[in-house]
């Protein structure tokens, strides 16, 4: 609940599309059906700058609404990491009109559920409710866009809650591992900071900091409402206009700044020594996102190198050499700024991290030296096409994709996703592998288990309370 979600791979294996034709050259003899799944989105812009994306679907008498703000951990100043997520928590602490606890109470009373999540690029709030209650949730979200109450007692209690959340996530070896890898792979871009923030910064955040942050970023011109479900588009727009449309633009709002990570000049490495059962190894390479012409080929590279069970890394490390319990690749196509192309292996008992790392690198070298076969390329494309349809099988997930894409630039890039992949060639995949998966562009992280508490110290006792 109110989770920080790390959406590293929102579209790595799940994009959406308008027309799914199957023009695989030399595909098996059977007739390929042309599938039509319309992305039936209406875009609406209000006078105050707020945007809305509406996707009607009457398959169930329900609606999912997500309100996205173009502010995430990416937008935090040094010393105030974690403030976007902390504010997300405070958004449930009441407004001038609806006191503490009322938000949740009203939604639940009406059979709805709600939550929120913060990412590197955004903060989003959502409700799922019977479609005849749409106005109720619109009114509540519009209210807390500008009327939030920030009070000392709740602010202090919530700070402890955020610390507990941080402990839950990062008290675990794998959590610490990924946090350190990101902190080293980026030097100046705020993607280097954990979304939840560094503990010392969370401690230092004041109500004043948060008031300023809220006023600056929570305004109509910085928000996108995404609706998926059983409603009439014109009626839903009228309700959005009625409640959000009258909120004035924020006088302190400024467009989010352009940020760019400095180009990496040489290889980096980090060792993470923690109390853990097994080693872990990951390689991270800076790679461009959807804004680059290379991005579609990187999606295919991710799939071929480390997507499914037939991918090269999985076959080599998990199946053939049994070096790892799991292994694969991870690439983020949709984001505001470029992220990292990861290769990783969860090392198996009795095996060495060094051998797993060597195998990962050999698979990269082999792909670059010997190329990609037509067969594996076709299989990867079919896999992504099928997953693209499967991704539409949920109101929640469609609203999530639309919002993520809208925040990153344009929801229409979802429509262009598969057509762009179809233009990629096996040679193009090799070309981007050579270009980005280089030693110079690499950060390696290795988790080394320490042995201090390997043995369970279990005591069982009996007694009353």
């Amino acid at each position, binding site marked *: *609940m109110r989770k920080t979600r790390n959406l590293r791979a929102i579209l790595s294996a799940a994009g959406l599309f308008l027309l799914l034709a199957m023009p695989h050259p030399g595909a098996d003899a059977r007739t390929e*059906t042309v*599938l039509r799944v319309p992305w039936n989105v209406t875009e609406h812009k209000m006078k105050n700058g707020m945007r809305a994306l509406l996707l009607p*679907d009457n*398959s*169930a008498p329900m609606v999912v609404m997500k309100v996205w703000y173009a502010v995430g951990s990416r937008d935090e100043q040094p010393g105030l990491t974690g403030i976007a997520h902390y504010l997300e928590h405070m958004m449930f602490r009441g407004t001038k009109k609806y006191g503490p606890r009322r938000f*949740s*109470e*009203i939604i*639940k*009373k*009406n*059979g*709805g559920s709600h939550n929120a999540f913060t990412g590197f690029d955004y903060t989003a709030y959502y409700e*799922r*409710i*019977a479609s005849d*209650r749409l*106005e*109720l949730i619109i*009114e509540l979200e519009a209210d807390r866009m500008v009327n939030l109450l920030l009070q000392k007692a709740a602010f*202090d209690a919530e700070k*402890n809650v955020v610390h*507990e*959340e941080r*402990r*839950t996530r990062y*008290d*675990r070896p*794998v959590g610490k591992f990924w946090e350190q890898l990101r902190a080293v792979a980026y030097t100046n871009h705020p993607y280097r900071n954990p979304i939840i923030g560094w503990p010392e910064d969370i401690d230092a955040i004041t109500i004043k900091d948060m008031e300023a942050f809220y006023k600056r970023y929570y305004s109509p011109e910085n928000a996108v409402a995404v609706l998926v479900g059983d409603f009439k588009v014109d009626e839903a727009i009228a309700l959005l206009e009625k409640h959000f449309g009258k909120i004035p633009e924020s006088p302190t709002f400024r467009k989010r700044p352009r940020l760019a990570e400095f180009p990496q000049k040489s290889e980096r490495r980090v060792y993470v020594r923690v*109390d853990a*059962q*097994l080693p872990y190894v990951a390689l991270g390479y800076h790679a461009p996102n959807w804004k680059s012409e290379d991005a579609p080929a990187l999606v295919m590279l991710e799939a071929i190198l480390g*997507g*499914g*069970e*037939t991918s090269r890394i999985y076959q080599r490390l998990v199946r053939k050499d*049994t070096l790892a*319990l799991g292994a694969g690749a991870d690439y983020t196509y949709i984001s505001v700024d470029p992220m990292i192309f990861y290769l990783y292996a969860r090392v*198996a*008992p009795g095996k060495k991290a060094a051998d797993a790392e060597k195998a990962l690198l050999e698979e990269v070298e082999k792909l670059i030296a010997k190329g990609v076969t037509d067969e594996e390329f076709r299989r*990867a494309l079919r*896999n992504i096409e*099928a*997953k693209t*349809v*499967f991704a*539409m*099988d949920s109101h*929640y*997930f469609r609203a999530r994709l639309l919002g993520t894409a809208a925040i990153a630039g344009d929801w229409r890039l979802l429509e262009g996703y598969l057509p762009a992949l179809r233009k990629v060639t096996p040679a193009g995949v090799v070309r981007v592998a050579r270009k980005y998966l280089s030693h110079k562009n690499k950060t390696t992280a290795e988790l080394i288990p320490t042995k201090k*508490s390997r043995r*369970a*110290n*279990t*005591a*069982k*006792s*009996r*007694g009353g309370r």
Partner: protein
Amino acid sequence: MRLHRILWTLAAALLLPAMAGADVITYEREELPGGGVLLVKQSRQLPMVRVAVSIPAGARHETPEAAGLANLTAALLTRGTKTRSASDIEKTNDTLGGGVGVEAGRARAEASMRVLTRDLEEGLSLLSDVLRNPVFPAKEIEKTKRRIAGGLRRQRERPGHLANKALRNSLFGETPYGRLVEGTEASIKKLGREDIVRFHQKWYGTKGTIFAFVGDVSLGRARELVLARFKGWQAEGGKIPEAAPPETPTKMQVVKIDRPLSQTTVLLGNRSLKRTHPDFYAARVMNYILGGGGFSSRIMDNLREEKGLVYSAYSYFAAGRHAGHWRLMLQTKNKTANEAINEAIAEVKRIKEKGVSNKELQDAKDFITGNFATRFGSSSRIANYILAVEILGFSPGYADEYLKKIRAVTKKQIQDAARKHIKLDESTLAVVGNLSEAKLAY
């Protein structure tokens, strides 16, 4: 003016809790020759079909000595058949966008897949092949055993896993509900190919198996496919091993596990009602108020909103067909472990001793009934629901009965349910954390 309108809107919404009835979820049910059942929920929204086959071949069909056998058997079904190698199966799976996966649970095993409509026939051909014709190659058995054992090892890094293992073991002992479905590193080691082959022959067949289809497929088409692919599929059957749960304690049992963590994980639980118990509905509403209602629950309100002690704290009834228990979970920094446990237990006592208010009761009912209609937003949610209804022995019209029974729950029934089904004296408290910092008073 504006305020007035908004208040009116809210008032109207509050007065009319969302209604949900049988029309929320309807599907077709048909019995198959050989003792199986076919369930179909057709929807043409997307060109895809989800298929789930639930087979009575879970951990409760294995003996305690062979712990992990059901899971190992399920995992090996996709590692080679009479006509397909493991690599062939992987290729087909990847081409289909995921393809067939098989997993064992405590009561049953489930094979499932998600395919584009155009791939349904190919998918079902693979699905039936892995269920009917596995060959269990010796090499694959060794690799799979090592992988499962490695997974168990990695799980030990997770405090929640350690606490769960301790709680289950204390409540259910040698029964399948007291151990991990994966078994232990030692028990897996002892399992041989013969055991796996026998388990498959004995339990995998049409009898008691449920075939659920959700999505772009008609009843007629689903029936035709199942009859063609699963004709003559028979299991030998046999006696389900019986094991008695541990004696019911008369005092709270405490299990402490020391780990160098900054946060303590706490589980508190007792053996409790099964899903078919008539008190289930009152227990469900009661627990929503106590710890199941997220931010609206008493435990969250006290421990999180008020005191900032936890990020996560909740309780639920894990009520199944064959066993059930109630549990409460919380995580807090080591230093506040005692305080958080005390507060959570105080909430349990308060609901037992003082019951709930009219408003709490009504709010809980409004949520549970109103939320019901929003629970079917994806094919996997629909498939899980219709399978659960069938497994529990309810009819396809169960949704109506469920909502009716929830609406009929009274304050007295709530307090009775708390008294009868949450039993602190019979409970186990499992704690994982830095014990020297936590200084547990338990």
